[in-house]
């Protein structure tokens, strides 16, 4: 006979209480997973935005919120004069005009997560965005070709070679982006001219990427751009990181705070149930003491019971949490939930699931410490004295 058998019998003996306790732990786990997955997705998207323009200066309109490399808001600015002025500055190697639009939707309501991102840049400069991506098909060779992110392609049944209609204009899909970027898989990448036309920004752009010559200090070029062109700001790698850090820190803090609260609730719940359970089983623990069970045995029994509750509760919670995370992602992006459910491990990383499970089991174990201390103090002489 194994001590695990005693624990399982105790848990199954009090079915309703055990089930309710497991359910409580599952709810807490569910929220930890859902909140964690949503915030992780935010952080992931924000973090990876900077990887596109590493070592380059990003020029964006003044007043725009620049999350890593990409401006949100701030309005467009004239393409020709801006690009001409920047390219004439000393130390500038190349300037790539771009237009990025996060609000372009194929349908649906306004959302707070990127839904369908439209990126326009010169055809010959497509490698700036597509260089590190996994591409099925090829890069656009002409203005009539577009590359579509795989998430959009799956949603709308788009394949390479298919002709699609965007705001009355017909394009041939020359490539499907299969990752790894969470931003790019929801993007439509087209020529700058066509993007300006589709987005109704003729000869306007809302960002430019500046390559500096070797040996030139980026800060100096950025300062010069800002001094000479009043309506833009020029951000180096470091400045972009400084701008984004508070956002990432804030989101991470929220995630940690929510996790801490929910893990504490799990701990308190299991502690309360444990205390009640010990109180009901005083005679059993006293008997165990009388027949020679040590405190370590008592601790093992109670901590094992709580671990089992934590294990089953966290398993259920992870399943519920993944569904809730998919629902939240769908709600905030207007992407059908089925698409998220088919790629569960993209929404909730397997490592995160394991991490949450370990944390939940550990908090349930911690919740068993007080009941275990109580149980190990029960002596048969007290029980018998009370009886007779």
């Amino acid at each position, binding site marked *: *006979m194994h001590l695990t058998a005693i624990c399982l019998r105790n848990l199954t003996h009090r079915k309703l209480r055990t089930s309710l306790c497991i359910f409580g732990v599952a709810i807490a786990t569910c929220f930890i997973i859902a909140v964690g997955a949503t915030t992780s997705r935010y952080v992931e998207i924000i973090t990876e935005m900077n990887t596109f323009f590493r070592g380059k200066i990003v020029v964006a309109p003044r007043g725009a919120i620049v999350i890593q490399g990409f401006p949100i808001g701030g309005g467009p600015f004239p393409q020709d004069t801006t690009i001409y002025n920047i390219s004439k500055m000393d130390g500038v190697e190349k300037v790539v005009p771009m237009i990025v639009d996060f609000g372009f939707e194929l349908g649906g309501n306004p959302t707070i997560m990127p839904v369908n991102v439209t990126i326009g840049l010169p055809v010959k400069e497509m490698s700036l965005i597509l260089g590190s991506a996994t591409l099925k098909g090829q890069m656009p060779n002409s203005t009539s070709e577009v590359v579509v992110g795989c998430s959009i392609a799956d949603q709308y049944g788009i394949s390479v070679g298919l002709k699609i209609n965007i705001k009355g204009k017909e394009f041939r899909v020359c490539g499907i982006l299969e990752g790894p970027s969470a931003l790019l898989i929801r993007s439509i990448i087209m020529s700058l001219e066509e993007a300006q036309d589709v987005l109704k920004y003729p000869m306007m752009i809302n960002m430019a990427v500046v390559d500096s010559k070797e040996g030139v200090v980026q800060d100096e070029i950025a300062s010069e751009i800002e001094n000479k062109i009043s309506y833009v700001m020029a951000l180096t790698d470091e400045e972009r990181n400084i701008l984004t850090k508070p956002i990432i820190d804030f989101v991470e803090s929220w995630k940690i705070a929510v996790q801490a609260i929910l893990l504490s609730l799990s701990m308190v719940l299991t502690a309360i149930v444990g205390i009640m359970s010990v109180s009901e089983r005083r*005679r059993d623990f006293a008997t165990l003491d009388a*027949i*020679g069970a040590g405190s370590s045995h008592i601790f093992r029994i109670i901590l094992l019971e709580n671990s089992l509750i934590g294990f089953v509760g966290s398993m259920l919670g992870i399943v519920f949490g993944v569904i809730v995370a998919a629902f939240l992602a769908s709600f905030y992006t207007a992407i059908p939930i089925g698409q998220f459910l088919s790629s569960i491990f993209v929404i909730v990383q397997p490592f995160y699931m394991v991490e949450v499970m370990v944390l939940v089991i550990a908090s349930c174990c911690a919740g068993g410490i007080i009941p275990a201390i109580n149980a190990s103090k029960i002596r048969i002489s007290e029980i018998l004295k009370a009886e007779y």
Partner: protein
Amino acid sequence: MKIKTVDLTKIYKLGLSEIIAINRISFEIGEKQFVAIVGPTGSGKTTLLNLIGLNDYPTSGKIFIDNIDTALLSTGERRKIRLSRIGFIFQSFNLLPTLTALENVELPMALAGKPEEEQRERAVRLLEAVGLSERAYHRPKELSMGEMQRVAIARALANNPEVIIADEPTGELDSKTAKEIIALLFDINRNEEKTVIVATHDEKIVDVADAVYTIHDGKIKIQS
């Protein structure tokens, strides 16, 4: 195993008042004896058994087991003695309700870290010995009072202890079943050569005991 007490005293504090449950008791129990401790309810029988069974600490006085002063033993050493050298039988059986009869008998062996196969084999044998092999997979609530006490006796014998301490083992049984339990305890004493210490009101136990101690108001009054 020889048990000796010297001026053993146990005082319980209830608020401001004190109750002297055991009052300077000195006596000795030799090896392989069948000892009965008799006395009215509240006389201190259970307290005395708890003290000599190392389940409780005396307020003053000494308990010697094989001439070793138990006051010098650590909690772990006391636990080991309870686990392997003393078997307890309670009036209310104290079986774990969630375990089967067989598992209840296996429990002390599991606590002693014996291999599962050995636990099962010995538990089956002990249940056979107390005539309960057919009820091995029943839980306590499915057993009669007599059957529960037989399981408790089998559990007490699980780790082959030298001493069996039984606290009113027939207290909750009808006379026929009580007779069977007494016979079983007597058999354990005579055939298994174990010391049996029984706190009881039962005259039948007194009749078969090698020594009888009468306890009254915490003092041993008569010794026969």
